[in-house]
């Protein structure tokens, strides 16, 4: 059961998690209510999204604009990312040791493990921050090798950061538009002479940017500087910015860090909403209840090795996982 790499959608595991999610919800209802605060010019000016793009009044239109439009070779349920014996070494330290697993298109895969297990390293090896020492990462039938980080983004992997890394002096909308720029082609000459393509891209970017902000629930704060947003909204903005690059795979690196239970429940809903809009999600997270509640399948790492791979319910009962997190009881080890 430990190495059970069953990769189908599992409604059972999903349901089991959904119950856990309910627990969060009962504690507080108002996590993402707009905070009532002083209105300072340039700092807090809630705007009505429909003033700018009237079509966005309809949530279905929003979801449609946000949904991925690009061709993906892998069919739903087929492997989108395949890690084959990937190892990453830093000098003498083996951070990742022959890790093999797949992420299937359309699923939410959880990647968990105790501190220092190699989750973020695994993530960085996939997104091109580190090059694997050995092994290959295949993304949408293409072997990833010798790509620059911005090229990997354009290939279709987007990520958020463990510590929020927004462009703090830009407004929320401008942050998202930087994400949409990953698909744009205008360069200096086009911008100087304001070519038709430039104007077209700019108009599209605002429409898509506003739709994305509305989708993650912060449309009203589009004109605020990123650094003035509350922490929870900053995390949402990061997700919107990542989605703006039109990714085939969205990687969330501990998106719930520093969240209270109510915010975690809201995040859970958002992640589900993103999946049902057609995205594939990789979730790295410490919070077990969130992971159990939202993922379809979980991969567990410990000391750079994969120790389990399976449905959330299986992982919860897996003795190796329990040992990794809680240690082995004295009487059992004897």
């Amino acid at each position: 059961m430990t190495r059970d790499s069953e990769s189908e959608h599992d409604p059972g595991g999903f349901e089991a998690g959904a119950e856990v999610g309910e627990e969060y919800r009962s504690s507080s209802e108002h996590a993402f209510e707009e905070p009532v605060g002083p209105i300072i010019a340039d700092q807090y000016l809630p705007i009505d999204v429909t003033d700018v793009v009237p079509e966005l009044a309809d949530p279905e239109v929003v979801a449609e604009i946000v949904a991925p439009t690009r061709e993906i070779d892998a069919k739903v349920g087929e492997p989108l990312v395949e890690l084959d014996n990937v190892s990453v070494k830093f000098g003498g330290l083996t951070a990742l040791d022959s890790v093999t697993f797949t992420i299937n298109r359309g699923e939410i895969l959880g990647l968990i493990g105790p501190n220092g297990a190699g989750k973020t390293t695994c993530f960085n090896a996939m997104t091109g921050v580190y090059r694997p020492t050995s092994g290959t990462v295949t993304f949408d039938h293409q072997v990833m090798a010798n790509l620059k980080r911005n090229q990997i983004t354009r290939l279709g992997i987007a990520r958020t950061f463990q510590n929020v890394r927004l462009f703090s002096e830009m407004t929320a909308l401008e942050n998202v538009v930087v994400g949409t720029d990953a698909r744009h082609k205008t360069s200096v000459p086009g911008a100087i002479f304001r070519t038709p393509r430039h104007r077209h891209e700019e108009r599209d970017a605002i429409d898509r940017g506003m739709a994305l902000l509305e989708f993650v629930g912060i449309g009203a704060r589009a004109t605020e500087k990123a650094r003035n947003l509350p922490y929870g909204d900053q995390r949402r903005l990061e997700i919107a910015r990542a989605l703006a690059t039109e990714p085939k795979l969205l990687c969330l690196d501990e998106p719930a860090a520093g969240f209270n239970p109510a915010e975690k429940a809201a995040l859970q809903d958002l992640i589900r909403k993103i999946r049902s809009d057609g995205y594939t999600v990789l979730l790295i997270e410490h919070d077990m209840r969130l992971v159990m509640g939202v993922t379809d399948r979980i991969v567990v790492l410990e000391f750079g090795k994969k120790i389990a791979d399976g449905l959330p319910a299986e992982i919860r009962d897996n003795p190796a996982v329990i040992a990794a997190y809680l240690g082995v009881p004295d009487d059992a080890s004897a």
Partner: protein
Amino acid sequence: MTSVAATTVPPPAPPVAVGDRLRLWWNSLSRPAHWAFAVPFIAFLAILPLWRPAFINTTAIDFGVVMAQFGMYALLAIGLNVVVGQAGLLDLGYVGFYAIGAYTVALATSPTSPWNITGDDGWLSRQWAWLALLPLAAAITAISGLLLGSPTLRLRGDYLAIVTLGFGEIVRLLAENLRDLTNGGAGLPRIAYPVIGESATNRGGIFSAGNAVAQPWMPNAGTWWFWVCLFLIIVVLLVVGNLERSRVGRAWVSIREDEDAAEIMGVPTFKFKLWAFVIGASIGGMSGALYAGQVQFVTPTNFNIINSVLFLCAVVLGGQGNKLGVILGAFIIVYLPYRLQSVEIGDESLGDYKYLFFGLALMVLMIFRPQGLLPVRQKLLTYGRELYVAARRRSRASDSEAAK
């Protein structure tokens, strides 16, 4: 859920600063309305060296010449602002590009230079040589920016600053030591300038250094050069403004804010850093060409590293990233020392202490207003205006509701 929101009484809003109100009002105006304010202001600036009100006029050096120098520094500040203010690349050798621009024109037109292509045996008429060489100077400095940038822009922060500092010195030392070419420390005299409007009293034309009338309402050479500068500043501002409100400007600001995050979000960082260097350099080169034409004489000492620091001072003082702010910064840097030269305390002229004052001013500014005199609020979207208008409408509505 709604009941909670309705019963919560918002705390009273703190007073909105004058600057913020002004900015909101300005942002809500349409583009023609912006021009309606800008055109009279530009006209006022253009008339200033003719009008010469007593409290503004400088005595030690002709006010027209001071304004011409301000125009060149304003161009430099706009160019440096692209590199430092927008893309966040600390360039301490910017004077190098200024020097390359000036020496391009000087080498091509000074009779002392072996590369002189004007005059009787040259193929460029002295009358139009300067105008023809202005775009060439911009192009050559752009290439030099590309050459400096492609190896060095892999460096970040302090390392980049040190390498660019070295570049600035290298350019000056080349000008000093390539004696066969640049005539060393003796400099290159008699550089071409546009010869227009010759008359019996004005044998060199209106742009000649000989045109030095000091009466009010009579444009002298300095004033004419200032008008040329003003024209170029407007053109450059339009170009840089278009860039700022596009993918390019957003890439620059995202690199300034967090280079790694920008790259992971798909910004080709190296490419856009190089563009910032190239654009900044060509604007600096243009300013250098103006300088060579106006003074008609260049020597290496005009391009000391202290000038780089002065340009940077103008950018920081005015407000990094704000195009209009850095122009104000350039005005302060150029104008104040000349104005204060005629103010004497005891036997000392205040103008002699300019570096002391700039140092003090920078220290005070860094403590009380680190964002500069006119802090930046960049607009990075071509069609973002309607958003800000929508935001303003909402804030007004809530204001009036609160008043009831």
